[in-house]
Every structure is written in C-alpha cells, then in structure tokens.
C-alpha cells in the first residue's frame, strides 16, 4: 500500500528595513513592518486563505482519506498573530480535522544547528510549545530549515526524542536508488528519514506553469499516473514543497487550485494508494536501507547544499557575527533581546546576501526585498552594529544611546522607537 505524503512549508521572515549607517546608535527598530505586513497580506489573500479552504474542503470531501502535514515557522505564526489572526484560525481549523500533522522546526527558521546547539535546542523547544499551544499536538517528526540535513543532525534529533526527520532525496547520496523508501540515517538507532521525491515535487512546485515544459499543461490524472508507477517498488512518495506554491509561486490562473482539487481523487482511484502524514508513514513502514549524509545537504538551488546561505564571505561573516554574541545575549536574560536576536538568525537574511548572479540568482532576486545582495549585507551589518552595542555596550562601535526595548506588537512603523540621547 504505497502512501503519498504531503508536507508544506509555511514561513515568513521578519525582514529588516533599509537600516542605514546613519541610524546606528539612534534607532533600535530594525524591522520593515510595513513590508512584512504587506507581504503577509498579499500571501494570505493569494495563498494561505484559498489554499487552506481548499485543503479543508478536500479533507471533508474525502472523509479522512486525504491527509497532509505542515511546518509553520515561529516567525510566520507571530506574523499571523500580528497581522492575520484570521489565517491562523484556518490552520487551527485544519488541525481540528485530525488529518493534518504539524512538524517540528526551529522557531526562527534559523541555521542555529550549524553554529550553536544550545540555541538550536532552545528554538526547537520554543517552536514545539507554540505548535502545541495552537494545534494541540506535540510534534513527533522534525524538519530543519530548508531541509538542511546531515548524519549528525539526525542523531541529535533522535536524542531529542523525535521518531522521524525530513530531508532532501539527493541524487549523489542515493547512488541510483529512488527516494521512495524510508531510510535509516547513519549513526542512529531507530529514527527514520523521509526523503523528498524532488522530481515529482518540483513538477508541481516549479514546472507546473512552465509553458516550455513538454508536460505542460499538467493535469491531475497525468500526475496521478506518475505516482501510480511507484506501485510495487516503493512505500512512500514524499511531496515536499513551499506552501506558497499554491497561488503565490504558481498563480491561481495557472490552474494550480483546480489541479489540487482533482489530485486526491485521481490518486485514490488506484485502490492500493493512500495518503499518510509523516508520523503515520514512520509508524507504518520500515527503513529499507541507510542514508549517509556526511556533508550537509539541503533542498535549495541546484547544488542542494549550503551555498545559498554560506556561499560567499558576506554571508559567512554575517552569520559568524550574529552567533559571536550568543553568550552575551543569553547572559542578559532579557526576553526582548533574545527575541530580536532570534529574528536576526532567520536564514532568509543570509539568503538575500547570495551573489549567485550567474546561476540560481534569479530565484534569490525574486525573494529578496532588497535591490542587491550588497544592500542585504550592508543593512544587516548596520543592524548588527547597533544590536551589538546594545548587547555589549562598549564592545562594538561607540554608542551612547540606550536601548528602548522593541515592543512585540508593533503595528507598522507607528510604534517605531527613537532615542535621541
């Protein structure tokens, strides 16, 4: 009985504003609230709301046979609290159906596992608490930021008590095998890895509206027939993608919602096929081999590695800097500082600094709120200079300004705090 396992990533970062060198020491509000709200509204209208309604409808229509999973970052939940409680409510409604699983991740959608394990644990716990608070379920399966993964992470996550972990099915690690079985990560006892089937996932996430693609336009029955080919040779087809695929990356006019509307029925036409959530997949199937990811892999860009966040010196420097003040932030025991620090760890900030102009640059450009990777870096480092001076007075640049704590519920720019010493 092969299963189809859907997982959708839902995430928005707290983008930082065009924070000038002239603001350092004078203005401690870093977020581009206006833009964050604007994007949250846009994505809510185009994707979150219509997609959630569609999923709810499908779950009802198929009477529990259609199941999906989500991972919501802590920052997107915060933004829903701030700007779109109505969207948050539809996720709660989805949770109540019993057909939706919520996965674990780092609260700030961060790269903390690479830099600070204590911070990583803190963020994962904070995230799971938030998920439990809203959705009344304790995450059992973990997915790391952008599916960044290696053996060490799998072992670490197992020790934290999770039974499954999601990762990219990277060709060079599969050695010609397909990703449609659970695998045991090297160096672990019982945790199971679910591998993304990137070909079938990307057919929906990237190629769906590509008119130059030989399969365009893709219909649900065709796609279901590709899924059905797995019969007899695999246990689970993992379709992992950004939730924004629905309505935002693939506009409604491409027919993506109609496609999704028909897809469960077409897949269930084959009597051997069903839908399962990641936890159910882990409970149902055995691992059939090992997955050995010595180096870090991810689901980003064509390289499927860390180069989207660590590809150049600006990115490495910015990351090194933000984690260099870990001890001071933690020692401050100041909740506001911890929050600002957490938000500055969100991986998107570093993604915007990527200088891959010549390969995957277009994708980076599409997602960036800045004109160039240099802007992303300059604004970030300016923010860091100000933040560092707050956390470690006297250590960084001279700053005589005292910090006014950033209020969490800051609507737009109106509550922007300014200090004029």
């Amino acid at each position, binding site marked *: 009985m092969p299963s189809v396992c859907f997982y959708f990533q839902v995430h928005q970062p707290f983008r930082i504003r065009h924070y*000038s*060198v*002239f603001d350092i020491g004078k203005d401690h509000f870093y977020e581009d609230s206006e833009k964050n709200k604007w994007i949250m509204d846009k994505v809510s209208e185009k994707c979150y709301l219509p997609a959630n309604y569609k999923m709810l409808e499908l779950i009802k229509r198929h009477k529990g046979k259609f199941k999906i999973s989500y991972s919501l970052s802590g920052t997107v939940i915060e933004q829903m609290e701030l700007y779109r409680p109505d969207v948050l409510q539809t996720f709660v409604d989805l949770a109540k159906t019993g057909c939706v699983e919520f996965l674990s991740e780092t609260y700030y959608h961060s790269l903390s596992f690479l830099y600070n394990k204590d911070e990583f644990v803190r963020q994962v716990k904070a995230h799971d608490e938030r998920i439990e608070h809203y959705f009344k379920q304790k995450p059992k399966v973990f997915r790391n930021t952008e599916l960044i993964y290696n053996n060490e992470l799998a072992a670490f996550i197992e020790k934290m008590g999770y039974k499954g972990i999601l990762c990219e099915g990277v060709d060079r690690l599969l050695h010609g095998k397909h990703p449609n079985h659970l695998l045991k990560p090297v160096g672990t006892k019982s945790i199971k890895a679910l591998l993304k089937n990137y070909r079938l996932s990307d057919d929906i996430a990237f190629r769906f509206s590509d008119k130059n693609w030989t399969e365009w336009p893709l219909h649900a029955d065709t796609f279901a027939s590709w899924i059905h080919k797995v019969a007899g040779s695999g246990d689970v087809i993992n379709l992992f993608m950004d939730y924004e695929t629905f309505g935002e990356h693939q506009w409604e006019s491409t027919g993506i919602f109609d496609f999704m509307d028909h897809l469960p029925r077409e897949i269930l036409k084959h009597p051997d096929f069903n839908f399962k959530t990641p936890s159910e997949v882990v409970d149902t199937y055995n691992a059939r081999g090992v997955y050995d990811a010595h180096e870090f892999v991810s689901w980003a860009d064509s390289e499927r590695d860390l180069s989207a966040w660590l590809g*150049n*010196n*600006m990115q490495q*420097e910015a990351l090194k800097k933000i984690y260099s003040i870990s001890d001071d932030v933690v020692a401050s025991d100041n909740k506001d500082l911890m929050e600002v620090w957490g938000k500055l760890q969100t991986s998107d900030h570093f993604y915007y600094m990527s*200088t891959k*102009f*010549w390969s995957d640059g277009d994708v980076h450009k599409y997602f960036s709120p800045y*004109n*160039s990777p*240099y802007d992303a*870096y*300059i604004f970030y*480092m300016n923010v860091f200079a100000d933040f560092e001076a707050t956390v470690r007075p006297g250590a960084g640049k001279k700053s005589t300004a005292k910090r006014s704590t950033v209020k969490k519920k800051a609507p737009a720019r109106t509550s922007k705090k300014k200090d004029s010493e």
Partner: protein
Amino acid sequence: MRKPKILMLGWEFPPVINGGLGVACHDLCLAMAKHAKVTMIIPKSNPEFVVKDLNLIGLNTIDSRTLKQVNYKDEYKTFEDVHFIPSELNPYYTERKNTFAIPAADINSQYMKEVRIGRKQAKVFHIDDLYGGDVIEKVTVFGELASMLAQTLDFDIIHAHDWMTMLAGMEIKRLTGKPLVVHVHSLEVDRGGVNSQGWVYQMEKRGMEEADLLMPVSNFTGNIINEYYGIDYRKIFPVHNGIREVKPFRTKSPYEEKTVLFVGRLTRQKGPEYFVDIAAKVLEKNPNVRFIMAGTGDMQNRILEKVAQKQIGHRFHLAGFLGLDKVRYLLSIADVYCMPSVSEPFGLSAVEAVQFDIPAVISKQSGVAEVLSGALKFDFWDINQAAEYILSVIENNILHEQVTADAQKDLKNISWDIAANRVMEGYKKHKLIK
C-alpha cells in the same frame, strides 16, 4: 560565405578624439573587421594613421570634385598630427537653434578648402575642430560629401554613429536604398535634459525615425529612445560597449585617508554637484576620507562654491582636466570610484575603475549598471544611499572584496568582440544580412 560590407559613418576617430565616442568607434570597427568588410568615413583623418583591416577615409583627404583620394604624403603641411579638442568644450556643443531645418549644403562653405598638392589642386573638407563653430553647417557639408563619396563605394549596410552623421546616413540611404543602422552613443536628452527640443534633438528624432535599426549602447538609452523620441521598441537593439584591456597597477597613496574618485566632465549630465553632496554626507560620519574630482566643464565654478559652502575644501580636491596617464594614476591610488551620472548612456569610466579593481558606486541611471552586477547602485538623487555605500565599502573589507570579486567576473562579459558579435546578431535578426 561572403563577408558583409559595412559603410560606417563616424565623427570622432583617433587620433582626433574628445571623449569615448572616437575610441568606441575605433575599437568596434576593429572587432567587426573579423565579421565584415568595414569602410569608415570620418570628417578628418591623419593620413599617417593607418588602421589594419579597416578602410578609413577622412574627408579632408578627398577631392570633392573628383571624389578621389588626394595623395598627401608629407606635402599637406596644414594637418596637425594629433589634435585634441579642448576638453572644456562640451562635446556636440551647438547653439540651440529652435527651428529645425536642414540647410542646403554649400560647396563654397567656409569648411571647404582649396589645397595645392604638387601641381594639383584639390578642394577638401577642412575643419579645425569637430565641435564648435557652426556645427550644423559642418554636419551638412559632411553629409553632402559623404553621400557623394558613398555612391562610388560598394556596401550592404550604412552604420552611422550619433547625430552628427545621421544626416549623411539618411542621404546615403535615400540615394542607394541600403538599410540604415544608427548606433546611439549619446543623446541630446542625456546632455541637455528631458526638455530638449532644439535642432540636435530634431535631427536625432528624424534620423532615428528614418533608420531601419537602432543600436543604443544600453537598455537605458533604448528606453530613452522609446520614451523621449517615440521610437518603437521593435527596431531598438541595444549593444553594450566593450572595453580595451589594460594592465592595472597600484601606487602607494600619498594620503592617509581613503580616497573616493570622480572622473568626468563637470556638466549637468555627469552629476558633479551630487558628488559634492555625497562627499559632505560621508564626511559627516567619517572625516577620514578624501574626494578627488578629475575633469572640467561649465559647472566648475558652481562646484567650487558648493565645496566652500559645505566647508569640506580640506577633503575635496578638484584636479582639473587630466590626461590618460594622470587618470590612471588616480585610479591606482583610489579606494572607491563614484559615478553619480544623471543620465549616462554607458559609462565606460566605471568599467575602467573595475579594471583597476576599485569598487564602483554608480548611479542606476547608467548603461553600465546593466553589465556590472558587482557594483553598488543608487538613484543619482539619493545622496544618502550613495554615502552609505561609500562608507560601507570603505569600512568593511568583506564587502569591498565581494564587490570587486563579482565585478571581475562581470569584466569577462565586457569586450568589443562581444559587442561586434552582438552588432552582427542585430543585423541578422533584422534581416539586413543573411
């Protein structure tokens, strides 16, 4: 396959040059010689100056009565060897006549001259300066002579550079029926602002309307052609300029402070006033920076006054007009190159800075912004943003290295060979050649 024959019409050409136009024409012709047989007609050539693979004809060497080349050898004493146009002269400067009429070419023009060579008499086109004087008359006589000469030549395409040769191009097209390509290096709208309506603007508009294909040096200029001249995008085919390779070098700077360099004419188009504003803004935050401005022009006094008014004279230096060697010296000591142009069709000087491995802080209103990913780009009016970039790139080594490293990659895609290929591609795409 037969090489297509291109008849180019130029105005500036080495060694008689003022700015980028002459060098660009020369280097483009050379690169195009690999694909085509190029004949170049210019107002004035030095008979000693021979360019390999290029049939160069100066109208000063053509007898207007026989249309034959005059054999000067060293008998024509009036020719100055290297003739630099005074740099304070705004290229293409003309009196702004507001009515557009093309005067009849006058073969008795003040710009025709009887010369005696040995026992022979010849009447040739003779102008001291390419610009200045009655440019409209010069352009008209050039058009007349060039079109007479063209009828004795064999070619497939007419390729004219800028408005000074457009009249000639139109006339040759009318007489021969050959397609006209206009290469646009600079426009009156760039030089004089968007309200330009004078004779030159009208000439440009007429020339571009009659051309079969336009090759602006950037998308930026292509957009101006569409927006301010009303030309259909379908006949606009941008060709980015190339650049000559140089051997960059570093010299130990005489200053303790970091140095920010501006090179360009001090005219509205180049945004020199913004450079002063940017300097003042930077110095607010970091007093240890020096600003050097190389070039001269009609705004020099205003710049001086502004520097004094901002009280930054101790950190802001006007170097005046400098020759190539001096400019290269400045590039070799500079830490940042700043180009705040208001409207820059291309902006070769920014690429020269990149060749010297200097990070370029350039306005988005430039063609070069399209080919340099590795550059910090601001809207020319956004003083704060430019100051921010200069401060960041001076104070942050990692940013400095990243920008220069990225720019070096860009440099591989900027060459006259690429430009020549693109020109040929344009000819083909528009079915001017097979």
